[in-house]
């Protein structure tokens, strides 16, 4: 390995087109004759549809068709890929026909010659509703509120108990226990680009092409093909540029199947671009749990048991992974600690709201948050420093692989190293001193520490609903250009750059000779997609291994061309060479011409000039392999290799985040003084990409901790329906981040990579909340629910 690029801050090759506005998103793909779709959506959270009158809409200018739930009954249900014991799965049709279950539930699709006509006609579709009682609170839903799916008899989708160890004994034997009710606010993922679909059916070829803003083009192809009854190999899904997903596009949505089906009905291209309001109403939300965390511990701070009993607000229906998300919380309840007994009791409930599903972190932020909050409570109970309580319970580096009572085996880690480094950067002891003095002067300063572990690189296929591997094809074209096809479908993370770094180093070629192609099922072999911080650890590894396969073949060809035994040919700096043989042949000048002499026919490729050479570049070999005139016997022409990498385990990145805040007495305003993050995501391919991921994650954590909350009123109306009301943090809300890293390679993949896409949303939230709670400790505060707004803080200061 020459290692020119890996580990360096290589600028993202994606960025020039993105920042110059030259990238193509779904809405930028323009096909002649495209029809536009707009949806009639429920304005009630729970109602029976007594009539849908489409006549006025159909008569409106430009309207081509209006489809209601009854018209599309043949389209299969929106899929749920989660397999849990006794899971209740509602029949989730692409359009509601008898009942609506949440505000935003699609009822009819209007197709018109332009998007204005389509939208105008939406207002002409007359829907008669008969209102039904609404349940929006998850605990009320569990306790027997109005039943949403009548055939189930109640709103409980599933109950699940997980964990290992004797939990009752642990609590019985503990010196002390603490218990806290904790709320995880429902969040809207707010990808910068909302969802969008363009579908084009060619009736002659019976081929359907769909452009969709998705994280999972292949899984979407399989699912949509099944839903609308087209052979999977007649459906091609293309993801052009995808303007962010954060998990919200790790899904198969009703609109996607509908658009494909409508295009097949009408034989025309049809397009739908989600509005921001639809995005708030009808794209999945994240988080949405409320539960009790209980910890058992000894007087010296040693943890002995942890129990988390939680109600998960699933929303009205299951989307792809809805019921599975809370189970990921259960997996990570051991945090970075040795806890002999752990139990999680999940009650997943239906409510009259949009479904929850994967949002950056997807169940793991909830776990880290409750565990870290619990550790703070333990520290408060013992009057100990929260960092020390954490340190006491870390497994030592020598204890890895470390088995948790949640059934996982953490791959590698040195948690104390990250904590030490973060404390050193922050000047932790000095901060505590400053805090102590400040308190005497009446300053409300708080320090929050979070030592997190996350589960990434999802994951072994055994643990995944639709395959946990990832694929890569690496091909060297006749001109020497390298094409990397990845089944991962990055959408902003920068793998076009990082995969090129890997390939450039492994092949010894210039990074500019490499193109990474993704997100087109017509071009790329089947892949799983980008989510769960998996693209580099699983997809990058697939690229790496595919290159090794390719190089094995290249080596054989090189040996043949150099007329030497393969074992004597070495590869370095992009060249195959055989010093001794080369020197000999140069001296005698007896090499045969590698190609017959003669006039090249028009259009012929340049012949590789190997005569008299003692070394050959891999690009020379690629051309020779393509021309296939001088290959070893039984060698396939061409130079490409495909590999499907199946990881044996997840990876477990970790780190320490330290937040320092100060609170304004009079207004409750919260100001960041410092933010330090030391993350360990294994081996780093591109530190700039890692920093970018950490930045974005912390920002979203700040959002969850202080600003963001999807609010439905008691009648199930979405009150935070625009970005004027739903507060996504802006640059001015964000402190300067002091970032650093430790690097503990993962033994799970040959790159040693762990993944970092979600670290920020997992590690940061507890540090921020911890800091705010710490600042308010003089008022006896031990916990506050998110989002912690200035008014909440002001009330505590002024009213106790």
């Amino acid at each position, binding site marked *: 390995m020459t290692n020119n690029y890996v580990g360096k801050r290589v600028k993202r090759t994606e960025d020039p087109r993105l920042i110059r506005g030259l990238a193509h998103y779904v809405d930028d793909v323009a096909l002649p004759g495209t029809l536009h779709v707009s949806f009639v959506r429920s304005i009630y959270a729970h109602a029976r549809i007594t009539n849908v009158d489409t006549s006025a809409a159909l008569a409106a200018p430009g309207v081509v068709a209006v489809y209601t739930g009854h018209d599309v009954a043949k389209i299969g249900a929106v899929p749920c890929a989660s397999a849990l014991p006794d899971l209740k799965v509602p029949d989730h049709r692409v359009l509601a026909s008898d009942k609506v279950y949440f*505000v935003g539930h699609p009822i009819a699709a209007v197709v018109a010659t332009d998007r204005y006509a389509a939208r105008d006609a939406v207002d002409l579709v007359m829907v008669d509703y008969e209102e039904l009682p609404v349940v929006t609170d998850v605990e009320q839903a569990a306790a027997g509120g109005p039943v949403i799916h009548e055939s189930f008899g109640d709103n409980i989708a599933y109950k699940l108990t997980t964990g290992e160890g004797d939990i009752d004994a642990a609590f019985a034997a503990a010196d002390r226990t603490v218990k806290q009710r904790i709320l995880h606010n429902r969040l809207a993922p707010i990808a910068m680009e909302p969802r969008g679909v363009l579908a084009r059916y060619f009736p002659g070829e019976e081929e359907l092409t769909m452009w969709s803003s998705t994280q999972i083009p292949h899984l979407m192809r399989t699912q949509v093909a099944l839903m609308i009854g087209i052979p999977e190999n007649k459906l091609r899904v293309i993801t052009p540029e995808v303007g962010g997903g954060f998990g919200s596009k790790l899904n198969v949505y009703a609109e996607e199947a509908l658009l494909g089906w409508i295009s097949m009905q009408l034989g025309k291209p049809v397009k739908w671009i989600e509005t921001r309001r639809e995005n*708030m109403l009808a794209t999945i939300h994240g988080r949405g749990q409320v539960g009790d965390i209980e910890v058992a511990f000894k007087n010296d701070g040693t943890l002995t048991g942890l129990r988390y009993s939680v109600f998960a607000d699933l929303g009205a229906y299951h989307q792809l992974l809805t019921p599975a998300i809370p189970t990921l919380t259960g997996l990570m309840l051991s945090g970075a600690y040795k806890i002999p007994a752990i139990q999680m009791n999940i009650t997943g409930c239906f409510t009259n709201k949009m479904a929850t599903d994967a949002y950056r972190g997807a169940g793991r932020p909830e776990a880290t948050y409750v565990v870290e909050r619990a550790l703070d409570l333990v520290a408060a109970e013992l009057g100990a420093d929260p960092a020390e309580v954490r340190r006491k319970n870390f497994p030592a580096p020598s204890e890895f692989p470390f088995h948790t009572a949640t059934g996982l085996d953490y791959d590698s880690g040195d948690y104390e190293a990250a904590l030490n480094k973060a404390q050193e950067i922050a000047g932790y002891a000095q901060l505590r001193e400053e805090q102590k003095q400040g308190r005497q002067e009446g300053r409300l300063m708080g320090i929050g520490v979070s030592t997190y572990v996350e589960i990434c690189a999802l994951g072994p296929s055994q643990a995944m609903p639709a395959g946990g591997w990832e694929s890569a094809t690496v091909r060297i074209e006749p001109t020497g250009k390298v094409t990397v096809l990845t089944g991962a479908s990055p959408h902003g993370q920068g793998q076009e750059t990082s995969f090129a770094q890997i390939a450039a180093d492994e092949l010894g070629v210039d990074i500019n000779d490499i193109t990474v192609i993704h997100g087109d099922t017509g071009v790329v072999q089947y892949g799983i997609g980008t989510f769960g911080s998996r693209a580099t650890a699983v997809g990058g590894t697939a690229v790496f291994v595919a290159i090794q396969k390719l190089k094995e073949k290249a080596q054989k060809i090189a040996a043949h061309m150099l007329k030497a035994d393969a074992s004597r040919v070495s590869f370095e700096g992009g060249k195959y060479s055989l010093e001794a043989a080369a020197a000999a042949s140069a001296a005698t000048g007896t090499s045969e011409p590698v190609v017959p002499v003669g006039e090249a026919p028009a259009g012929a490729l340049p012949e590789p000039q190997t005569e008299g050479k003692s070394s050959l570049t891999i690009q020379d070999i690629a051309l020779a392999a393509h021309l296939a005139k001088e290959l070893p016997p039984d060698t396939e022409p061409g130079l490409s290799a495909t590999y499907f990498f199946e990881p044996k385990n997840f990876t477990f990145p970790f780190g320490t985040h330290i937040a320092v805040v100060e609170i304004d007495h009079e207004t409750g305003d919260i100001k960041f003084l410092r933010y330090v993050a030391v993350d360990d995501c294994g081996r780093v391919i591109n530190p700039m990409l890692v920093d970018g991921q950490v930045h974005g994650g912390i920002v979203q954590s700040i959002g969850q901790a202080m600003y963001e909350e999807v609010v439905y009123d008691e009648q199930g*109306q979405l009150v935070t*329906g625009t970005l004027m009301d739903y507060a996504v943090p802006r640059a001015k809300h964000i402190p300067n981040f002091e970032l650093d890293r430790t690097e503990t390679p993962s033994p799970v993949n040959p790159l040693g990579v762990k993944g970092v896409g979600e670290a920020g949303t997992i590690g940061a939230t507890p540090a921020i909340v911890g800091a705010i709670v710490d600042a308010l400790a003089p008022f006896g505060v031990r916990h506050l629910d998110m989002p912690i707004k200035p008014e909440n803080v002001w009330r505590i200061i002024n009213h106790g």
Partner: protein
Amino acid sequence: MKLDGTHQLEAARERVYQCLVDPEVLQRCIPGCERLEKTAENTFAATIRTGVGSIKGVFNGTARLEDLREPEHLRIVVDGKGTPGFLKGSGDLDLEQAENGTKITYAGDVQVGGTIASVGQRMIQGTAKMMATQFFTSLGAEAATQVGEPPPQHGFFRTALRWFSGWLKNIFRKQ
């Protein structure tokens, strides 16, 4: 959303009550009411084109008068649906004889849905209060006329509002 308050009208309680149950008067007092047709006893079909500033919407629905106890109490129940969403509400009105007229105490519940619910959070309460003020101000003017007299002129509302805001200022100066 809860909505309550009191309004002082310079008219006799009986007269105010009469106005409140007279569909023609109601149509003139409900801000933007374009149509109020009796469909059954104390039940009306209504079209209301209303709004505030540039925000406007048309609602079609029903209004019903209930629990009529002349001259002291009645209940108004409205239910409308329109392009910006829906609007539902009910309110109890209690009329008391006061020193120089009638004091109306109202307590109600208003629910909105659809676009207006999800984007207008910070203004809904203000809008509801403003509509209530418009309604009672107009009602006061109607009730100040005698039966058989021509109703007060349209467009008077703005003047009334200015008067109302001037009145607030006066109150304020007193403090």
